[in-house]
């Protein structure tokens, strides 16, 4: 579609309005779920995280127009690479945090050192 055509801008406008309205709904939904503690702890965390992911995807599509470019899709490619780097950062951090003595209390640390025959 030639983008001198007013229809093109109408579609874009609808996209912005849809993105805006959905984002408000998702934000309010997450807020209300937390305030009312609607679900149990772990489920609530998952739902809130899920709502955030959906909102981010919608904003990427409707506001940042990700994926709407013609080929070659360089912007999408750069975005995917960034996602890979961020994914390594996040998963790596979670992995390390789960593995180290991070979760030990001082007493546990002392016990651990004694068990290892270490300490000072």
């Amino acid at each position, binding site marked *: 579609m030639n983008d*001198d055509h007013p229809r093109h801008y109408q579609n874009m406008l609808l996209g*912005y309005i849809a993105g805006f309205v959905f984002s408000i709904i998702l934000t309010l939904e997450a807020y209300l779920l937390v305030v009312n503690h609607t679900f149990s702890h772990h489920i609530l965390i998952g739902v809130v995280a899920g709502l955030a992911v959906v909102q981010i995807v919608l*904003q990427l599509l409707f506001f940042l127009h990700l994926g709407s470019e013609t080929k070659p899709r360089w912007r999408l490619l750069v975005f995917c690479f960034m996602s890979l780097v961020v994914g390594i950062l996040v998963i790596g951090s979670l992995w390390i945090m789960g593995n180290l003595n991070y979760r030990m209390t001082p007493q546990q640390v002392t016990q651990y050192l004694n068990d290892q025959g270490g300490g000072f």
Partner: protein
Amino acid sequence: MSKTTTVPETQSQVEATDSTAILGFWAYLMTDCVLFASLFAVYAVLHNNTFGGPAGGQLFSLRYALGETLILLTSSFTCGLGMLAAYQHKLRQVRAWFAATFVLGASFLALELHEFAHLASTGNSWTRSGFLSSFFTLVGTHGLHITIGLLWIIVMMVRTRRGISRSSLRKLTMFSLFWHFLDVIWILIFTIVYLLGVLKV
């Protein structure tokens, strides 16, 4: 380059000739995402290190943060409307929508600074604990980006006094990408820092 008349360019014409510059700015924006990811990682590691002090759930007002979120979201929307007007060469609408974006963005920043000032004055500044250090760094860096965005709007308002030149249209496009991206980052901050903080994650 003419600054007094609005140049009739369709969006795809602009994108075709400026695509390299806009792609370059997009690549910068992606590196900014990596920067924020590292700040989030630090926050994840330190957010329970309160050094005996209060944790997020005890410090944050969720209603206040919700207000900030909705304001910033609306500013992202008005920015989008401004860009739509720019591609249709409606100068006055462009300036009106970007002025609205500025007002909303400045309101967001004022609310955030008020929250920071309140935290600092009650003894909960960034020197209090690792948690607060990482909080102020993460949220503060976002606020710094917002501040620069506001300055950018002012510059663009000055430059588009009499019309939108080709280069101004390109720069407005870049600004809108920047501003939308800041809203995406804020969604993550609202969720991870405020919502999960109140849930004592």
